[in-house]
């Protein structure tokens, strides 16, 4: 495949403070390649707001606004309103938040913006914990995942929150999962979402070698394995009603996804079996959701 950058000037400048192999940086780089220079990024506290650079320097060549942790969606909505009243309806306002800033502290503002159908593009880059503060559990952390606040002596028992379902419940025009392990799919979805009016949401899976305890060179591969094992399947929801699966490689066992990651190292074989059962069940539910809509049509 031949990827040609879509923009003339480089929007992503090297020299940032991201960990080697950081999935989140790859995620924004690939997103901006599609969105281009007519984009304003609103980013709350999280890995990105720290790695972007030390003031007064930055690694992005689009306007970026660092905002308070809980305010990604609300500030983005305000930026959009401010642009709109000045006659600018073309600039994409991208709210770029981590899982902490989306699933937890930013949840209310996100729900508010989506309910109002504010014309913003919200992407949650999900590394499944509060990584910037040193790997603490969020509601996006998978069950059994080690973090400093769910250590081996007290691993997380709650399942990962399904944020796309929540978005769908708001009747959002477009919600989808995407992953750095499927870059063509990501590009497609970002391009599609860019052209839609109203709130668009992408849940973007981004590996974290530091927090997940895997070798940095496997960052993309781990995300790929998540798709293949259906731990993180690729799908879209249109208007909160039409669920459709995206093409994925053949399903593999979760084993291959779990084994390279140190955060799962204390998972027993029984634990892996339970994990597998849960993934299988969720996958069946998702499939039936996608099929039942087809049946109605």
């Amino acid at each position, binding site marked *: 495949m031949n990827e040609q950058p879509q923009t003339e000037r480089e929007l992503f400048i090297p020299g940032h403070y991201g960990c080697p192999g950081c999935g989140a940086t790859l995620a924004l780089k690939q997103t901006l390649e599609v969105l281009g*220079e*007519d*984009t*304003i990024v*609103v980013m709350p506290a999280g890995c990105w*707001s*720290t790695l*972007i*650079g*030390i*003031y*007064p320097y*930055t690694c*992005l*060549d*689009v*306007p*970026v*606004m*660092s*905002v*308070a942790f*809980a*305010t990604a*969606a*609300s*500030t*983005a*909505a*305000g*930026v*959009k*309103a*401010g*642009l*709109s*009243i*000045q006659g600018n309806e073309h*600039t994409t306002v991208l709210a770029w938040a981590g899982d902490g800033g989306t699933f937890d502290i930013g949840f*209310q*503002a996100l*729900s*508010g913006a989506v*309910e*109002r159908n*504010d014309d913003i593009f919200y992407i949650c880059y999900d590394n499944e914990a509060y990584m910037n503060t040193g790997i603490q559990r969020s509601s996006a952390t998978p069950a059994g995942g080690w973090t400093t606040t769910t250590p081996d002596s007290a691993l997380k028992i709650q399942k990962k929150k399904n944020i796309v379902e929540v978005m769908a419940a708001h009747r959002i025009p477009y919600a989808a999962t995407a992953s750095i392990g499927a870059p063509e799919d990501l590009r497609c979805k970002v391009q599609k979402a860019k052209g839609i009016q109203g709130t668009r949401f992408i849940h973007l899976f981004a590996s974290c070698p530091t927090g997940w305890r895997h070798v940095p060179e496997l960052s993309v591969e781990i995300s790929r394995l998540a798709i293949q094992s259906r731990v993180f399947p690729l799908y879209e929801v249109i208007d909160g009603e039409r669920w459709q699966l995206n093409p994925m490689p053949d399903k593999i066992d979760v084993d291959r996804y779990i084994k390279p990651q140190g955060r799962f190292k204390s998972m027993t074989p029984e634990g892996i079996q339970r994990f597998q059962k849960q993934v299988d069940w969720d996958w069946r539910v998702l499939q039936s959701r996608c099929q039942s809509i087809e049946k109605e049509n």
Partner: protein
Amino acid sequence: MKKVLMGTEAAAVAAKLARIQVVSAYPITPQTVVVENLSDMIGKGELDARYMTVESEHSAMASCIGASAAGARAFTASSSQGLALMHEVLHYAAGGRFPIVMVNANRALAPPWNLYCDHTDSLAQRDTGWIQYYCADVQDVLDAVLIAFRVAEQVLLPVMINMDAFYLTHTSEVLDVPDQIAVDEFLPPFRPDHKLDVNHPRTFGNVCGADLYTSIKYQRQRDMLTVESLWKQSAEEFEIKFGRMHPAVDAYRHEDAEVLIVGIGSVAGAMHLAADRLREDGLAVGSLRLAMVRPFPLTGFLEATATVKHMVVIDRDVSFGAEGIIAQEIKAALAEHRRHIQTDGFIAGIGGKDLTSEKIIGFVLQAINKEGAAVRAGLSLWAEVLP
């Protein structure tokens, strides 16, 4: 044009005249009428603005910040609990140098619930770096919003226009409403030098080291300290254009006063009456209303207190474990005189308790005679508490 309006209505009219571009609306008694009226004005096409029905005050302020950062004139209104919820983002608005204007209805903080006049809500936010102005009457509300936008956009700092719950929010007065053309001449469109602009892409507010952080804050303090004179300039121009003066320090009969009654907000009227009555009894009393509390209007304050010997401060607020906030502010400022000035602080009129001129006279006499009904608790004398 003359109109009968109450405080909240006046605030909405002022915002409309100021041609605000983005409104973030969240209801809380007793400011709700402000945002309700704006919704109707926008709906009818009287005001060209984007109206955002946000889901909390925290989001209200955040969306104002976003709109202001994009280069639009932003406005919102809140009170008490809502203002408290916004606290984190108030710091953000001021630190980001966004010239947002917010109307705050001064209302008591829970628990227990109390919807009535109290100044702790906004005074507890005095360290956020917002310019704070307290209105004496409803005309003041309307006019101050206009002056506020002008000063805010000159200095690039947000302004909180405070009005007392119910005494101003829900009290009607005959107002002189300026016409749009005259207001447009007074208040030009918002054209910031720095904003989120795809043609000049920069990052706002990323992590900063201690070295630059110190200088950034110094720069902000330096700019904040110009506000007293900026407000004076704008207020003088406003007076020329519209015939009304809104000073940062409102001193009454202070030139030869030995005793000054000090307060903020709508108590102004009662303070004037009390001063007049005490003068009739031969006491050299005047009153001092701080219209501007942040920045502390030191120049005006020192002039007004040049010869005073005794300050009687009325606080419709408490800083628990210390004393009334205005009393603290006064004492700190008075130290500049380098001479001892007696200051007696009274906690009164909180949670909506009425402040009448009779009560104020009682405070002054208690301060002078060292005896009266108010009960001492630490540095303050508390009026009308249960025995």
